[in-house]
């Protein structure tokens, strides 16, 4: 068994993450810096994903009735030569897209903390354009030093349970606790997520980072 796992590990090591994410799939994630216009050199990251629907599997997933979740995360790293880099801050947000077959419309939920924005699109062209929105995150560091931003995009399907939780969130139970909070951690959750994973439903993780910049 040890040999088997070692073989798995070696197989894994032979597929670097970035190569898988950016080249093996047509979806792209870009992160760039805003122009160097601040007096102290502070710059913010601008994150953009592109061509999500150009990869037919996500469109197929949507049309199969499964919502697609885009989980963005941006991290602020302080670069320290001669020592490991320091994570100084991270932020994340979600975009959930689902197809409503009766209306033939696509609903796009953008979730920032407890703030949710819902938009609907009637055409794939419009949805594709909306999914390519760029996000400028005002997280510029204050302290002097060398920094860079790392961005991650995880694209996955939502299980029924996740979707149900999302719906309850939208219905006003964002802070709901109480007796049923633990039901999320049920057999159904584990089974559904595991089966969704193994059933060949797609998942994707992309990473990108900016070049270093100096705050004076």
């Amino acid at each position: 068994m040890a040999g088997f796992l070692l073989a798995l590990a070696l197989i894994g090591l032979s597929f670097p993450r970035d190569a898988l994410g950016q080249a093996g799939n047509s979806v792209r994630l870009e992160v760039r810096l805003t122009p160097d216009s601040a007096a102290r050199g502070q710059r913010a990251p601008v994150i953009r994903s592109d061509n999500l629907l150009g990869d037919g599997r996500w469109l197929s997933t949507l049309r199969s009735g499964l919502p697609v979740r885009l989980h963005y995360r941006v991290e602020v790293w302080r670069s320290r030569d001669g020592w490991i880099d320091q994570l100084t801050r991270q932020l994340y947000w979600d975009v959930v897209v689902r197809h409503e077959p009766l209306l033939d419309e696509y609903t796009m939920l953008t979730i920032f903390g407890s703030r949710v924005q819902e938009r609907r699109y009637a055409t794939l062209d419009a949805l594709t354009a909306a999914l390519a929105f760029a996000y400028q995150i005002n997280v510029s560091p204050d302290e002097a030093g060398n920094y860079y931003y790392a961005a991650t995009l995880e694209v996955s399907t939502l299980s029924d349970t996740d979707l149900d939780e999302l719906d309850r969130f939208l219905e006003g139970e964002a802070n709901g606790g109480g007796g049923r909070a633990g039901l999320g951690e049920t057999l159904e959750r584990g089974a559904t997520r595991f089966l969704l994973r193994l059933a060949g439903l797609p998942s994707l993780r992309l990473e990108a980072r900016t070049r270093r910049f100096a705050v004076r």
Partner: protein
Amino acid sequence: MRPLAALVLLLALAPGLRAQDSVIVIDPDAPLADSLERVGPPPAVVAELIAFYNDSGTTRVQGDVTIPSESRFEGRLALHRGNLRIAGQVEGPIAVANGTLHLLPGADVRGDILVIGGRLIRGAGARHQGRERVFWDAAPVAGTEEGLLEIRERRRPIGDLAAARTSFRTGKVRTTLLLATGGTYNRIEGLPIVFGPKFDLRTGQRSSLGLDLDGILRTAGSESGLADFGYSARGEFRYGRFGVAGRVYSELAAFEDHPLSPSESGWSAFLLQRDYRDYYDRRGYGGEVWAQVSRALRLELSRRRDEERTVRATDPWSLFRNSDRWRRNPLIDDGHYITTGIQLDLDTRNERYLPSTGWLIRARFEHSSSGDVAPVILPSVVRPDLPVGRRYAFDRLFFDVRRYSRITPSLRVNARLRADGWVGGDRFPVQRRVSLGGPDLLPGYDFRAFNCSPSGFDDPSMPALCDRVVSAQVEVRSRLGLNLGFRTRSANGSRRFIGIEEADLVLFSDVGKGWLAGSGPGQVPVNRIPSFDEWKVDLGIGLDAGEIGAYLAKGVSEGEPVKFLVRLQRRF
């Protein structure tokens, strides 16, 4: 819903903003505000679109329509649902509802353009004279039988895909009806089925009232000594950051919260006939007051009165090893217990299920007492005789501290320190005693390898008998691309990967010790913890794909064989 940082969308929210302005600026330090904003085209413009479309002088088309080059159209032209491709000349205004307008090379449009619910795609050399308004957001319109358009009311986003749960609102009361499993499978209840309504009432902008009524149907029969039906009713009033709750219940409770989570323990029991938890029947009532001091910090004071009774293992079905015998469920010290507790929860994790940074701290102190305990016989080294003629009382302290850290963008280090046990008063009843060994805290050792059972004490139920346990865990995680599976190509040309594409490579080590407190042989003085050379240590490696992980672990302080284990969630 995971706890997220407070972010505010500054642009793209304003209704008048042009949808093509496709940079969204997020200010993470803006004040937190809960909201659900449904964005769409301005109602006045939608009304204008409907009026235009329904005008008797408008030429209405649907689907994909092309005006070829060298052709000419005069008048008002409107399209609903489809693609309007113009390569020729159009003299007059154009409106498109939930479709795309293509101005192809050579197109010449002289008139206003209004597109709602789609894009305007302009080819090189296309000409347009007139006003141009484009809104990507869908127009909330629907076609009528007469071929006209009307406003479509927006549907409410109820969880229509969750067949076992439905919610509706009547006035200020939101009602949820639930039919679900109890989240586990065990040798006492079998598969518990939970059903019942939940009511939420918004009594004010900052206050709410909730009532949660659950019935529990037990499928394993009544041989366990447990009633076929259990129940739980909980009422809670919240005001701002404070709350008060009361509860009555008749439910099955577990002795310890490890070595597996309820769902994993359920899978283990259902598939392999291995139930890694012990249970007792708990009926009673209680209440709590709590304060959410900050987003991350919660304090709770609680008091409850339980009747606790022994239950027996039954013989529910399992997929494999169904002919084996289930492990017996230990006898407990039956009686009525009054427990007062204070609990602190600090959670700064960035995500609930797969955190990468932050702290999770839970600490709880309990004082319990009983006036009618009926003790089981335990070896005197484990517990002296319980008091006669006065109340039986004991104190318990539990804490679990977890730290999640990202060292580099691809490397994480997580650590956990956990302790549980007796701190004062009479010695624990059986159902409060603790142990070590098994998949969670010390995976390099067998289940309950360290249960403080004295030599010669042979109980097939393998009860946990320790007074105290302490354990520490550390793990290093690095993300790997696995591609463990194969790819298929569907009819539409899209590729699908079947298997596991990526996983965490996990290197871990655990240490722990369980002991009996006292001054006798084999015991550790009550004001000491054992010296570190007596602690048990294991090392391991594994692959964690999120919903499933496989690990190899070996105890290094004993001649233990290598253990292989599968987890259905993160180790911690």
